[in-house]
């Protein structure tokens, strides 16, 4: 242990503790801006500087360690002046039009500048006005970038992708797409982790809310919205709602007055995904004995960020990715076919919106082959949770006082197995529950496959499915996925079935979720989903009555010709920028 004094307080902490953490342990807050625990402790912004007795210069508290007898002042006049000036430096290159910024009110720079009492700037403003492709689902505005370098770190270290880099030097140093490429020419998975780790509004999703408002105002359009599983664990956060208050039924009530004609649950199509994907897996297992071109593991396909990643980085494995569409796209396809028939309407009149914790889904719905139901895109617009929260705010709805209301039928029914799609391990567990039934005809204990839960980035489990031993693995975060693939390719590990979600912790930690700077909430939100599953009456996808009806009335059975046409896709049908030639 090391004893030191911080702001006249005796503090005792273990060796190799940073000054920042030592202060925090004593309840002393040192402001930070670029700092992200374990990921970006680089002392770049110089906001966390403190005074250490005996050293003339100030010391960055985020990447310097405590020493015995150290005397630290976190807010001396020298510190205060330097900290304020450094923030003024940053502001001199920051577009401070907070009134028209999506991060206003949730911006670390804004908070810090206000905290430090900066009311005018002594320096002239210099903005770079870098161009950006505004049609891409991910928008970078370098006029708001403070060069904290977090996006570079998270993309490279957590997601093994490395889209971002420092692309110039000296006073022109800026963060941009590596090698000066156009963003659409990169292997960006659109996981959105750079957005949720950005302290300002430099990174955001393409805002599609106006397209939805326009559709809602169009009397000829039938506006239908689906709500993804993980949305229910997070949508209420910016409104200060507790998880108990922010139920999905309350979200239904918030959306209804906006003018949505039908509000459905993506849990339904998550159950549908399980029917198809589990059947596909069992079919592959069965066929493998006759066809040695079928290789294992089979990878899940519900995460479009992962699909973008594997197409860019390991196209040689693409045939091992399930052909099942993501729940979003299955929903869209069913909506504009089966449901249009049920309603007796022209499917072209349906405007299909989905609310997703995700950016990659914005690109997925726009893929040229995601139009299997009627020729129009099966999903017209994807909104992130942040966008839908902005729409709710634009409606000036007091969400806390709303009564809960029910989803519409029949596509508003989902099981607990559908809910857990939003957390790492959930797809695997849901699939195994149904696969067990498909093999044995028996009803499984829904908790029999819970070994794949938890926040570890790479989990393994072995299950016995009616005498067949099944080796499965679950990874979340593309860096973990990459490590898993490396191990697979080197022969260190071998699996039958692998679930990958691009975002750490799965969709609960999705790049389209509300942002809380410095906090990783995937675990907490995931727990909400597991809790909802636990209390569900229905926890097995094949028992979902709407699913049963959908097959009976329309699809016949999993992997039928109709199901193949509507619910499966050719993963080779489109290319990532660098996919060809690999």
């Amino acid at each position, binding site marked *: 242990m090391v004893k030191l004094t911080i702001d006249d307080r005796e503090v005792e902490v273990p*060796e190799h503790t940073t000054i920042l953490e030592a202060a925090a342990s004593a309840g002393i807050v040192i402001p930070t801006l670029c700092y992200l625990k374990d990921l970006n402790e680089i002392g*770049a912004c110089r906001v966390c500087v403190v005074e*250490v007795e005996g*050293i*003339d210069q100030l*010391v960055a508290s985020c990447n310097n360690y405590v020493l015995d007898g150290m005397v630290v002042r976190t807010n001396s006049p020298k510190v205060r002046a330097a900290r304020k000036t450094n923030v003024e430096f940053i502001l001199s290159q920051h577009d401070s039009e907070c009134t028209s910024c999506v991060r206003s009110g949730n911006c670390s720079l804004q908070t810090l500048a206000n905290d430090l009492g900066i009311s005018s700037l002594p320096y002239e403003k210099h903005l770079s006005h*870098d161009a950006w492709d505004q049609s891409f689902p991910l928008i970078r505005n370098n006029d708001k970038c403070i060069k904290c370098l977090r996006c570079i770190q998270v993309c490279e270290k957590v997601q093994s992708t490395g889209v971002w880099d420092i*692309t110039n*030097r000296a006073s022109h140093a800026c963060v941009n797409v590596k*090698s000066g490429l156009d963003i659409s020419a990169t292997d960006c998975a659109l996981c959105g982790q750079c957005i949720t780790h950005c302290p300002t509004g430099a990174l955001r999703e393409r805002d599609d809310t106006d397209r939805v408002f326009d559709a809602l105002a169009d009397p000829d359009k039938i506006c239908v919205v689906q709500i993804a599983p993980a949305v229910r664990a997070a949508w209420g956060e910016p409104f200060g709602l507790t998880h108990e208050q922010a139920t999905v039924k309350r979200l239904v009530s918030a959306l209804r007055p906006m003018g949505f004609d039908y509000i459905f649950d993506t849990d339904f199509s998550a159950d549908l995904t399980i029917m198809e994907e589990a059947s596909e897996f069992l079919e592959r297992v069965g066929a493998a004995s006759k066809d040695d071109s079928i290789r294992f593991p089979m990878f899940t396909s519900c995460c479009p960020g992962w699909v973008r990643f594997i197409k860019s980085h390991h196209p040689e494995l693409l045939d091992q990715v399930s052909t099942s569409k993501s729940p979003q796209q299955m929903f869209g396809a069913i909506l504009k076919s089966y449901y249009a028939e049920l309603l007796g309407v022209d499917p072209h009149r349906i405007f299909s919106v989905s609310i997703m914790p995700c950016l990659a889904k914005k690109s997925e719905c726009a893929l040229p082959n995601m139009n299997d139901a009627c020729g129009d895109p099966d999903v017209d617009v994807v909104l992130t949770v942040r966008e839908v929260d902005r729409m709710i705010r634009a409606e000036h709805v007091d969400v806390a006082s709303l009564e809960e209301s029910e989803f519409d039928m029949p596509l508003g029914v989902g099981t607990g197995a559908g809910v857990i799609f939003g957390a790492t391990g959930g797809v695997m567990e849901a699939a195994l529950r149904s696969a067990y039934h498909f093999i044995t005809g028996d009803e499984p204990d829904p908790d029999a496959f819970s070994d794949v839960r938890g926040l570890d980035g790479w989990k393994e489990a072995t299950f016995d499915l009616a005498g067949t031993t099944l080796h499965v693995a679950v990874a979340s975060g593309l860096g973990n996925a990459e490590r898993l693939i490396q191990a697979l390719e080197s022969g260190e590990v071998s699996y039958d079935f692998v679930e990958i979600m691009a975002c750490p912790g799965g969709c609960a930690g999705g790049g389209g979720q509300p942002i809380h700077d410095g906090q990783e909430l995937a675990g907490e939100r995931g727990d909400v989903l597991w809790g909802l599953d636990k209390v569900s009456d229905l926890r097995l996808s094949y028992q979902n009555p709407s699913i049963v009806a959908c097959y009976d009335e329309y699809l016949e059975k999993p992997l039928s010709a109709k199901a193949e046409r509507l619910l499966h896709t050719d993963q080779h049908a489109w290319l990532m920028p660098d996919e060809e030639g690999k």
Partner: protein
Amino acid sequence: MARLHVMERSDAQVVMDGLHEALGKRMAVSSLAPCPVEFTAAYVEMCKTQSCGKCTPCRVGLGVLHDLLEDVLENRADEETLTLIERTAETIYLSADCAIGYEAGQMALTAIRGFRDDFEHHVQKHACGFTQSQLVPCVSGCPAGVDIPGYISLVEEGRYTDAVRLIRKDNPLPVVCGLVCEHPCEMHCRRGMVDDPMNIRGLKRFACEHMETDYRPGVAEPTGKRVAVVGGGPAGLSAAYYLTLMGHKATIFESRHHLGGMLRYGIPAYRLPREELDGEIGWLLGCGIEASVDSPVDAEGLERLMADYDSVYFAIGAHTDRKLGLEGEDSEGVISAVQMLRSIGDGVNPDFTGQRVSVIGGGNVAMDVARSALRCGAEKVTIIYRRRIADMTAQDAEIAGAQAEGCEVLELHAPLSIQTDDAGHVTGVITQPQIIGGPQRGRPAPRAAEADQYVVPCERVLVAIGQAIDSKPFEDMGIPCKRGAIVVDEDSAVPGFTGLFAGGDCQTGPATVIRAINAGKVAAANIDHHLGFDHKITLDVDLPPVQFKGKTLCARCEMTEREAAERVRDFDNVENGLTSEEAHQEASRCLRCDHFGFGAFRGGRIEQW
């Protein structure tokens, strides 16, 4: 009013001089870092401040040139801007009245033409395309990428064995390098911006001399693969060491009686004591390297090795001497430097007692043979060089060492012929005095001065004008060569010969120890890959946490030398290592660029390769 007054330095001038000195130091250590366009713009702006303002091209031209360069940096430029930049710089060069202007114009022109690709990258991509080599400056400057801040922190902690372990992750010859490395790392040391660069080589030597215990590195499971290494110099030894750690069976074939290559047959013992060299080679062999000395490999032998072994690393060095091409060169008493150092390397010192010796050449080897000649009893040693002392390629310390020991340097004298007596014995070197002129291939070129020929009377002539590679027999068997040097691919593989890799002096031409070591390291990694493996050489030492100490000024501790009059009588080490007090003070000066600055962001170390 005084009619004349004595010039005094004003206070402002003192500050100005200080800033100029600081700027010089700053520039000296930062050549790996900047963006070429940023640097050119800053350079032009600096030149601009020196303009008196009288003449148009300098007063106006440098200003607009800087604006245009800013346009490139601010992404406002296109191809036409680049053309205009070039025309602007050229006009300043062609038409400025004094050096302030035309030198600035020419430098800008050099930069724009030399950095053309970088300028275009900026214009087209709005990004800098210059490779980011500035992670940790000293490590970037070290050809072998040794973890310098890491081992300095271990020296500071008094963990010398761990320091050596850490060095050996990237360089298996720390003892040798502690004594003779040319330390390009120090040239880039950021501490140089504050006061003086770190004495990195001194700290390495100190760590090696103060190891608490010996140790053995971990060796991977035997792979059953056998690799033949042709040549037992630093490249061959390094390759063999890492291949051994990777589990392969490496066998060195050395043509001479001892291992070491140029370490033994090129570097005299007073710089690299034999017991140190033997100790280090012995340690390497103790790791499981097999070596067969007195085993020259000719073309046929190489073919046999390629057939018998899974892979072959070819590192024969550059051991043949270059001829002067002068009359009398074959006379008795003329010896090549290679010949002399080789003989000393095998323990046979020539006897020059009472003789006058002329050394022809101005490189490190010339200094080595000159100083060795003194130790072999020479009465007088004269180093004859056709350029100026300042133009010599030998390191300053080597020249100073030779002079201190009593070697005369006869600069600006070009040898014309070797004078002999009737019996064919050398009696002197006839030279033509030279006058220095303008540059030729980067160095000022001398030409014959209007002066009479000159005779340096002597009984011995030592020719040290460079070494060549004995590659002819291998070229004849089809191995690609360019001007005598083996040509290899990026991965050190010899094109057209599967499994054959080459590196070291025989590929680069005569170079430094540390470059040869790196060649061996690179070859080991690529041979491992070629054999179908992916062994990693990893960091196996815990490093102490970094402490920020703030700026404190403290000059560099230099290594001292034994008194010239004493050391010239023996072949013992000339240089004294740092004392413990000096080493710890020196280690504490390290700015830890692995943790602060860009190292903090991109990671200060390569944990495995």
